[in-house]
């Protein structure tokens, strides 16, 4: 087993519709930028892992066509789709490929072009016997879980709105972020259209077109190729049972995220995550979810998430900045979103995050969230 580090990242400008490029060209953009960032060429890449939820665009085996956009011509190419976790699942797969000793340099690219498809229709393609009949997409699904979370933990709409505001204000310092709403306020969030109680329009993530890439190198190559590589310290995944009715209190406890985080912290030796982690890029598809994730990730005790956002602990200048990039609430090309979490965490550790850089970030956390409450946790550091 080899140690592995990320040596480069690249992403597209994320936006509502990239009518000027195909999916393959979108992937090529992110790939080219990652190769440039790593200072290597496609010929140095041994293998490619792709991430995309083709149900959203109505495609089949998209890696057949898009693989070439990632430079996968006659290379080992593998495509992963696990819902929202697709990007982090692909990042973990790429990490395993490198750590296994099979490949020295592995490129991971995630993309989604929601503007070419019907996302809600894709989300209805679940279990045909039970879930499809009640398929309500992300919003209805979250409204159910959030109502239970609010009832048990007592977070308020104002506290959730503060998460939404924090994300969009952070995004205003990220040139790649989709939503640019630096004038957003808590009042504007609460005044925005109600989608499904208690979720307002501005509490939800957007649908974006975009791609993001990261490049891994094995221990003997990474230090030679990158002056400050982001070493993978832990990569843990947890899945859960699929049926909504079987996952009682899923946002309240979020046991997959809790258990994945515990194992990751144990591997790295983290005992006080809030104090020890310098920056977190977590997959928050809806404002309330970020509060629940604070608790599942051990940033605070159960029921304390509201206080964390009230006290500004997770703001850019707080003790643990969460989602300096603007997060999924500002940018959400689903197949890329998990890769963006990892790339942004890497950029922080490398000191390459530009205007949204957290000073002296050395230990970063990235997470993925997928339908059915699946979770991935990845921890990266400077050494």
């Amino acid at each position, binding site marked *: 087993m080899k140690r592995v580090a990320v040596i480069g990242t690249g992403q597209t400008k994320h936006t509502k519709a990239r009518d000027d490029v195909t999916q393959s060209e979108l992937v090529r953009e992110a790939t080219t930028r990652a190769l440039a960032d790593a200072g290597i060429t496609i010929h140095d890449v041994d293998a490619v892992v792709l991430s995309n939820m083709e149900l959203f665009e109505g495609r089949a085996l998209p890696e057949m066509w898009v693989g070439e956009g990632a430079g996968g*011509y006659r290379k*080992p190419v593998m495509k992963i789709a696990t819902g929202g976790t697709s990007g982090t699942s692909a990042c973990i797969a790429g990490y395993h490929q490198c750590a296994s000793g099979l490949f020295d340099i592995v490129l991971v690219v995630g993309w989604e072009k929601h503007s070419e498809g019907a996302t809600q229709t894709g989300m209805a393609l679940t279990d045909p016997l039970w879930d499809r009949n009640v398929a309500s997409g992300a919003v209805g699904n979250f409204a159910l879980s959030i109502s239970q979370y609010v009832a048990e933990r007592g977070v308020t709409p104002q506290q959730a709105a503060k998460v939404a505001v924090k994300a969009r204000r952070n995004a205003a310092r990220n040139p790649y972020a989709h939503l640019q709403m630096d004038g957003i306020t808590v009042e504007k969030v609460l005044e925005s259209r109600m989608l499904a109680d208690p979720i307002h329009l501005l509490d939800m993530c957007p649908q974006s077109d975009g791609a993001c890439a990261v490049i891994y190198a094995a221990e003997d190559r990474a230090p030679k190729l990158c002056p400050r590589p982001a070493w993978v310290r832990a990569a843990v995944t947890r899945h859960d049972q699929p049926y909504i009715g079987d996952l009682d209190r899923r946002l309240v406890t979020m046991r997959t995220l809790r258990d994945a985080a515990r194992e990751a912290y144990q591997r790295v030796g983290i005992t006080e995550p809030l104090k020890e982690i310098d920056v977190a890029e977590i997959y928050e598809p809806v404002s309330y979810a970020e509060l629940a994730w604070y608790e599942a990730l051990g940033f605070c005790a159960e029921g304390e998430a509201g206080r964390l956002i009230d006290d500004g602990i997770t703001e850019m200048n707080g003790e643990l900045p969460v989602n300096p990039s603007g997060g999924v609430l500002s940018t959400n090309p689903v197949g890329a979103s998990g890769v963006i979490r990892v790339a942004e965490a890497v950029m922080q550790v490398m000191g390459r995050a530009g205007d949204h850089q957290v000073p002296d970030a050395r230990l970063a956390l990235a997470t993925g969230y997928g339908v059915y409450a699946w979770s991935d946790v990845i921890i990266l550091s400077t050494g």
Partner: protein
Amino acid sequence: MAGDGLLAACHGAMSILAGAYNVVLVVAHCKASMGDPHGITNWSYDPIFQQPLGLDDVATSALQASTLSLAPPLPCSIADGAAAIILSRPSSVPAPHLIGMGWALDEHYLGDRDLTDSPALREAARRAYTLADIDDPKRDITFVELSDQFDYQRKLWASVLFGKTSEVFETSEVSARGVPPFVAGLDRLIEVVLRLRKETGTALAHGCWGPCGQGQVVVVVRR
């Protein structure tokens, strides 16, 4: 994971080699009867040039068969099925060992490809042989199991792997025809493992997916 289940086996093996897991269950499934298994393949062609032509796996396999001067191909019957294997870190159990694996994608545009050949399969095999320390596959491989969703493919894949005059593929006893797509490659691995439980040797399992076998995967097992 997309592609053939044999690729998932490679992924599982890599996760073990990476130190992430000790035991991995790999499952491949396909319930072709739920949909239009040939029609859906039209959606795997790029939407700008090839998909609008109405291409699907039957049409492009006919193209490939004609370039090989063969009769129109016979697709295998539509089937539902699943296959599973359990991979473990090397132990004292005298189970067949996975000693080589490789996979690769060919060009997507059929006009860019020589359909009488499969460079992706050659590349997948080269990677697997390198890991398995196999210099001369004709000599070192005892038997093979190939994936053939169309009747002509078995001969094509065998000629790419072992040369046109090779008889190695003839040692394959069980055809993948009738096994659902995406399950077939993992099913090939199961077949070679079952045979290696009865006799010692080195075996090759093959899987493919996508237009005219654009995706290729090879696993080498030894006992």
